[in-house]
């Protein structure tokens, strides 16, 4: 194959990526316009389930961002030259995921035109404001860190400081967990395990996205990888998913053992939900694929496991929101203030979710194309 042909092929594959993700983004924009015109009532959220898939998407992308920051910081802090190629890519993913996460909040609030009040009338006691402050810190640190990483290939003092800050900001993903874990009204959320569980899921999803990005970039010739270069990230992702499943088991055991009516109803709801078993099953499959010697070194298997891990952790976030509202504290019969059916996202909600996932991928593709994120490898 001569170089011209090679180049044409690469350009056409880029065009396909851009076209596809661009189309998904347009679907999202259309869905948002519909929601702005018709009101947020176009979603299937209700007075009894006031939060839905947007908040699940927010948690997922905040976790992706935080976990990626941790992954970006580690090779700098512990001087692991082999992992330096991940650092820039992970820092870039962190930034883009943060943007996607923030947009999920923008589309969720009823009055986006009033969001400035979060600054003007900030109520510092609200866990939501803690989360907002952490988000702003993420944004600043990941931007500075990425710039510094791209500026020099050596580890200097300033980069080390930024890496420590990035690590701390990544661990602060637990603050998103506090938005829920402080809520006495919801038996499933009101648990000290949730912030830890958020952080573990964050690491797992970040590991998975880095694996996926690296395999895809390798296929496109943007990074040169030896067979075993991905193994540390493979291990980390597998460990995160093992701990995640252990925490799921811990959740169900503690809920079942208290034997309060609400908790038992929650356990019943959980084991009756196909999504719950999907979460457990995909988690197990990912762990096996990432640990089995026959599959853990094969890029195509790694990519498959990574996609499955991302789906698994996204489903986990959706279930987390659903479980929070599964058992109302007061269940006496009266006039209806919400539809009696369970929450399933509406077409517009799906459109916006697809759009934001598309935008996330689009920004990644553009970034990998235009920023010198993998120049180190080529040199």
């Amino acid at each position, binding site marked *: 194959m001569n170089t011209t042909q090679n180049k044409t092929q690469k350009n056409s594959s880029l065009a396909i990526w851009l076209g596809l993700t661009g189309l998904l983004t347009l679907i999202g924009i259309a869905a948002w316009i519909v929601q702005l015109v018709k*009101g*947020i*009532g176009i979603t299937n*959220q*209700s*007075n*009894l389930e*006031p*939060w839905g898939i947007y908040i699940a998407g927010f948690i997922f992308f905040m976790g992706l961002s935080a976990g990626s920051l941790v992954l970006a910081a580690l090779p700098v802090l512990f001087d692991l030259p082999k992992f330096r190629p991940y650092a820039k890519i992970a820092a870039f993913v962190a930034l883009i995921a943060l943007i996607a996460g923030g947009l999920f909040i923008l589309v*969720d*609030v*009823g*009055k986006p035109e*009033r*969001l400035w*009040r*979060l600054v003007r*009338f*900030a*109520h510092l*006691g*609200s*866990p*939501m*404001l803690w989360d*907002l402050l952490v988000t702003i810190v993420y944004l600043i640190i990941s931007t500075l860190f990425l710039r510094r990483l791209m500026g020099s290939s050596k580890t200097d003092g300033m980069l080390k400081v930024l890496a420590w800050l990035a690590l701390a900001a990544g661990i602060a993903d637990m603050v998103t967990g506090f*938005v829920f874990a*402080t*809520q*006495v*009204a*919801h038996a499933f959320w009101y648990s000290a395990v949730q912030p830890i569980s958020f952080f573990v899921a964050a690491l797992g999803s970040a590991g998975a996205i880095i694996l996926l990005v690296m395999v895809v970039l390798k296929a496109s010739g943007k990074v040169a990888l030896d067979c075993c270069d991905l193994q540390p990230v493979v291990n980390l992702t597998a460990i995160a998913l093992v701990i995640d499943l252990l925490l799921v088991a811990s959740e169900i055991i503690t809920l079942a053992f208290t034997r309060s009516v609400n908790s038992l109803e929650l356990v019943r709801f959980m084991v009756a939900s196909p999504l719950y078993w999907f979460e457990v099953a995909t988690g197990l499959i990912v762990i096996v694929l990432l640990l089995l010697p026959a599959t853990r070194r094969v890029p195509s298997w790694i990519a498959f496991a990574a996609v499955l891990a991302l789906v698994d952790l996204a489903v986990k976030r959706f279930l987390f929101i659903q479980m*929070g509202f599964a058992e*109302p*504290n*007061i269940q*006496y*019969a*009266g*006039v209806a*203030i*919400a539809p009696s059916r369970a929450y399933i996202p509406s077409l517009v909600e799906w459109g916006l979710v697809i759009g934001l996932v598309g935008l996330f991928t689009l920004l990644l593709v553009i970034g990998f194309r235009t920023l010198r994120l993998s120049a180190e490898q080529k040199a």
Partner: protein
Amino acid sequence: MASKHYVIVIDTEACIGCHTCSVACKVENNLSDGKWWNRTLTVGGNGMDTPSGIFPNLQMGFITLACQHCENPACIKVCPVGATYKDETTGVVMQDYDKCIGCRYCMVACPYNGVRQFNWQAPVYSTGFPVGSADAPVHQQSTVEKCTFCAHRLAKGEQPFCIDVCPSHARAFGDLNDPNSEVSKLLLRRAHFQLLPEKGTNPSVYFLT
């Protein structure tokens, strides 16, 4: 501490489950279609107005559920912009519609599910014209709203409308900080309970048994 601590005391022995307080609230506050700040709930049965138990050992009871105006309100703690707040002079938990950004965190935080309601659409009225008090709150799309103990009536020295309309005199309203008030005396004399005391919210709505 609030100089006054307004509470509502509801006699579950006297309540006949007629929904008059619920409908009166809806009219007085000009609530749009689908909004119920105060709901009459049937305790026990599977549906509204159905008894619990097996014939002939049947029982029927009611509670009315509205904002509990808690002393330790979960909603106020979580609001990121301070749109929900406690009126210092009355102890009433209020909602500032002009400040609310519509994030619905207060609805999520409140253990008494459904007492806070969101205007998912622009308010629609089946009557086609506004009803109730001329100084009733103006409802806004995409904001959270709830019972205010009829703050507009309190300001005029009146009681909440649900108290006035109850045909069986099951509801009483007053200042718990005043030992001579009707509500203080009722709570001294009669056995009573609050809803979900284990949540630590300390509601200002009491039920006599």
